[in-house]
């Protein structure tokens, strides 16, 4: 629907262009692909490729963006094959050359004027494709090529879009039509193939003539002598098109329905050309249907565009075994579940109350419609009972009739014809059992564990390609986790609530962190807990690391070291995009190195430069912490306090957002992986300059000469600047650093000190050289 809407605006009222642009943008950002909150796969349940374009798609007219191929393209291969087999003596390449080679058009135009066609022909065409004019069939072919490629005066001109008159009189001339009809009539009845080809040429010419309607009469008179091949149905499309053109939609719909019903290649085109009619007119169109099967199809197509459910029930009353019912049912399910299923947001537990969620699901189902679906699923009159049982069961779960659903799913499982159909039943069964539980006790776990294990661990669910697989399990995976988490939360079981669906901030509470650690370490976990521990995204290593990081920022270095030392290597499964396979590799956080020397304290903050610098010692998080601890011990013993305090200050500076060792705080639990944007919850820790400032101040108390004094004062100016940036700018939700009135520096206290008391130091000169802000401050720029 949306695509049709866009097309409408694109070609229609162009003054709406602004609105169109905005709308298209909105659509694009909402694009998730079919089934982002669907569990019911039409591919699997309908299990009929023919109907695939007509499955429900929330974005495009046809499912997965199918488009209607032009009939020339659609039947090209077939046409070449048929002519090749008719002619007997040429290969497909030769036939294709004469029928479709674009460069031949001009050549043929020249030939067509000549008196002796056979003689001139081979002089002009490519010699490899020379024809043998001794055969009648070859002569026929040559005549057909000239006729069908449209070399008459009318279409011999190349069409010019910028020719206004050309544009408005572009119809096939009557002479041209008459000529085609004459050749057709003259052709021998005995050569059925050739006659049939010419017959189609006449239909085509008539359809594109001024007198479109003439195609109707011609078809009615002559069609009975023609085979019901693809030309026949293409011809019938012209007839339907002529009716549509004249405004006789009842008749055109009846014909398009016949084509949809009888000729697969033109199904999408016929459906696209069908024009939905008001109810009374629709009923009249049904009377115009040439046979029962077409009549049934009319219901299907009308239902596609209008009230699908109503037309599905009507069709069922006429013929419950109709082949068109299944795709209508799949559409009913897919359309409804879009609004019934709860859209789940990433990383938020948006199902707060399981009971409430259930009553919402129930309230969104039309009870009388479901009643009818149940009846049809029971009556054993449909051709594909599997989809009916599955669909009914799905909706019975929504309304809380878990027993009926379970019974229907049991039957569907028996009816399943392949593994995929069975898998669809399992996912619906899981949903049913899940919703049937109000609390998760031993019984509940038993009821779910096999299917939940299948959902999260079966290779067919973990290694499939989301973009090509017809399976729809993503939503179910997310929903299962969130729903269980909501139940646990309701019961006050925060640990299991986190294990089933992790949310940010859980580990800030030390008690919770310890409880999770215990659970992950426990050797007496239940099988149920194992299922979720296995898919829990955080490893013990992540948890220890996160604690170590938090402790470091509290300047509790010893305790931080203790946490880091508990980190052990673990195995991680990762998708390798190059080999396109999952790989298991061993990960050891302890060996990850920081990129630059975390003890640097330079005039200019240039992280990239620090990373490129030669570093005789490379630090890991742990070895870095140990070094800091060593320095702190020296400070405690009054040993070289200036230097040690300076270096510890630098260590805190560099492990903040502003420093060269950001990698120190990258951690899954904390949720920082190197983005320039720091999460709100992490800002207080990562933008904090308190520790750096504290140690610089300590160093300042122990300076022994003016050079040292200059340096510390300058570093303190950097601290003050960072604090200002953090409070003034980074605290805003969206900070854009390129605005005109951005204040990049002020008269920091450190700048003042430097200017007043240290102007004669070497360090001062270095600052002048390297720091533009300072030059500006002292008025040099």
């Amino acid at each position, binding site marked *: *629907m*949306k695509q*049709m*809407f866009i097309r*409408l*605006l694109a*070609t*229609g*009222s*162009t*003054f*709406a*262009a*602004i*609105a169109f*642009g*905005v*709308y298209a*943008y*909105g659509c694009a*950002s909402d694009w998730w692909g079919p089934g982002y909150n669907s569990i019911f796969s039409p591919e699997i349940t309908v299990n009929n490729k023919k109907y695939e374009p007509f499955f429900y798609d929330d974005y495009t007219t046809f499912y997965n963006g199918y488009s209607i191929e032009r009939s020339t393209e659609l039947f090209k291969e077939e046409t070449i094959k048929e002519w090749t087999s008719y002619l007997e003596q040429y290969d497909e390449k030769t036939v294709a050359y004469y029928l479709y080679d674009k460069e031949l058009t001009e050549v043929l135009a020249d030939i067509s004027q000549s008196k002796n066609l056979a003689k001139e022909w081979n002089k002009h065409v490519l010699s490899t494709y020379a024809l043998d004019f001794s055969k009648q069939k070859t002569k026929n072919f040559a005549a057909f090529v000239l006729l069908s490629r449209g070399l008459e005066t009318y279409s011999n001109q190349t069409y010019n*879009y*910028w*020719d*206004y*008159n050309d*544009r*408005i009189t572009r119809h096939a001339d009557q002479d041209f039509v008459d000529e085609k009809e004459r050749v057709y009539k003259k052709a021998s009845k005995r050569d059925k193939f050739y006659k049939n080809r010419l017959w189609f040429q006449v239909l085509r010419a008539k359809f594109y003539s001024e007198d479109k309607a003439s195609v109707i009469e011609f078809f009615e008179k002559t069609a009975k002598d023609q085979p019901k091949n693809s030309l026949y149905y293409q011809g019938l499309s012209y007839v339907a098109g002529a009716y549509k053109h004249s405004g006789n939609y009842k008749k055109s719909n009846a014909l398009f329905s016949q084509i949809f019903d009888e000729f697969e290649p033109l199904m999408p085109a016929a459906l696209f050309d069908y*024009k*939905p*009619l*008001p*109810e009374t007119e629709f009923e009249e169109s049904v009377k115009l249907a040439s046979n029962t099967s077409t009549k049934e199809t009319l219901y299907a197509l009308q239902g596609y*565009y*209008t*009230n699908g459910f*109503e037309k599905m029930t009507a069709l069922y009353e006429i013929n419950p075994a109709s082949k068109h019912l299944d795709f209508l049912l799949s559409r009913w399910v897919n359309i409804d579940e*879009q*609004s019934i299923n709860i859209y789940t947001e990433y990383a938020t537990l948006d199902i707060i109350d399981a009971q409430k969620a259930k009553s919402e699901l129930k309230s969104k189902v039309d009870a009388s419609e479901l009643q009818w679906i149940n009846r049809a699923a029971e009556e054993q009159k449909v051709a594909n009972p599997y989809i009916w049982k599955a669909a009914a069961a799905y909706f019975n779960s929504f309304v809380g009739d878990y027993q009926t659903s379970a019974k229907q799913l049991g039957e569907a499982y028996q009816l399943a014809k392949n593994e995929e159909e069975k898998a669809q039943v399992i996912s619906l069964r899981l949903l049913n059992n899940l919703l049937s539980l109000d609390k998760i006790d031993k019984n509940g776990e038993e009821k779910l564990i096999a299917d939940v294990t299948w959902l999260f661990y079966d290779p067919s669910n973990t290694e499939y390609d989301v973009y090509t697989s017809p399976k729809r399990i993503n939503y179910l995976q997310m929903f299962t986790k969130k729903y269980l988490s909501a139940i646990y939360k309701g019961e006050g079981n925060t640990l299991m609530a986190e294990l089933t669906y992790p949310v940010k901030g859980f580990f800030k509470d030390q008690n919770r962190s310890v409880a999770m650690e215990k659970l992950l370490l426990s050797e007496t976990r239940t099988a149920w807990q194992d299922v979720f521990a296995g898919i829990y995204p955080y490893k013990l290593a992540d948890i220890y690391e996160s604690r170590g990081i938090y402790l470091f920022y509290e300047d509790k270095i010893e305790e931080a070291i203790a946490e880091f030392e508990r980190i052990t290597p673990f195995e991680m499964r990762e998708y390798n995009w190059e080999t396109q396979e999952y790989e298991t590799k061993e990960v050891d956080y302890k060996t990850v190195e920081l990129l630059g020397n975390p003890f640097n304290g330079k005039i200019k903050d240039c992280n990239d430069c620090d990373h490129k610098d030669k570093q005789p010692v490379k630090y890991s998080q742990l070895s870095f912490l140990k070094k800091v601890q060593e320095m702190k011990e020296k400070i405690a013993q009054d040993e070289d306090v200036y230097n040690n305090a300076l270096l510890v200050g630098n260590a805190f500076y560099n492990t903040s957002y502003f420093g060269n060792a950001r990698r120190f705080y990258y951690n899954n639990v904390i949720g920082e992986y190197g983005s320039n944007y720091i999460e709100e919850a992490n800002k207080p820790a990562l933008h904090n300059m308190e520790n750096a400032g504290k140690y610089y101040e300590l160093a300042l108390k122990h300076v022994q000469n003016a050079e040292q004094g200059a340096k510390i004062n300058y570093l303190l100016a950097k601290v003050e600047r960072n604090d200002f940036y953090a409070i003034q700018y980074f605290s805003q939700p969206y900070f854009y650093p390129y605005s005109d009135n951005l204040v990049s520096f002020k008269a920091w206290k450190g700048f003042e000190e430097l200017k007043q008391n240290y102007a004669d130091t070497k360090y001062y000169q270095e600052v002048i050289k390297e720091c533009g802000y300072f030059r500006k401050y002292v008025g040099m720029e």
Partner: protein
Amino acid sequence: MKKWLAILSVFLLASCVPDTEKTPLSFYFWRTSFQLSQTEKDYLQELDVRKLYVRYCDVALKNGEAIPVASVVFNESPENIDIVPVVYIKNEVFLQNSDTKDLAAKIMDYIGQINRKNNIQINEVQFDCDWSLKSKDHYFQFIEEAKKLQPNLSATIRLHQVKYSKKTGVPAVQHGVLMYYNMGTIDVGDQNSIYDQNIAHRYIQSFSQYPLPLDIALPIFSWGVHIRKNQVTNLIGGMRLKDMQNDHFDKLSDHKFQVTEDFMYEGRYLAKGDIIKIEEPSAKQLKEMVADLRKSIKNKPKEIILYDLNEQNLTEYETDVYQTVSYW
């Protein structure tokens, strides 16, 4: 949906109110076949309309080539009225590296063909293009080329192009026509995408700074936003509040209506429970637009153009509305 409109505080301009005088009124004609109904002719006479801006064609890309699309067909010759051809050029045309000289020649020639065929004399051509930063250079180059063939050019100007004129540039034409509509997003909310005074006020301050003399185009068109299951599925052109006064619709609020039963509305299927949001500028809003514009625009417009000429649109408003909008 992200709003593309930036938010600025509004300063009301203090200005003295000059004596009003009548400004000529004209219309955009945006249908594909030119034929006026008797009512339309009566209105044109009554309102003393001397000029029509007729959309001659759109120009769009087909296989990378710029071609005319949906060209107008004159089923009757316009009599006693001046015609200004308008060509809507899709932005995509100028996004690619186009031969602007060739395109200008083609378009001008095409306009000439239509004029000759229908015996129309013109002395102005108007281009309508929602150019963007990326297409700006090509569009402006095109204008330069077109000017060599027809010196009297005008161009439509959208609100954001006035406000951000330093960035978006100003086309070098004789005068612009400010499109005082299409202000918001088409969505399921209560906002009106055609006209919203609050949004208009975000732009109004910039009008006095705009270097090009501006005529004003005002909306008299309407549409229904078709909403199903809280999603916009379609726009139904021409739908008005008066079309909602029947059993097919239940009133939900001033502009929102719920469909009471499945039915076909002019070839479109409306299902029970669907919602239609009518967007149409009211008579009061039209007067309000003019009052706001009078205070903010630098030069008095030479003309007020209403979008668009159509019996349904015309008869929607009382004559005094047309009088009010044409007195400045």
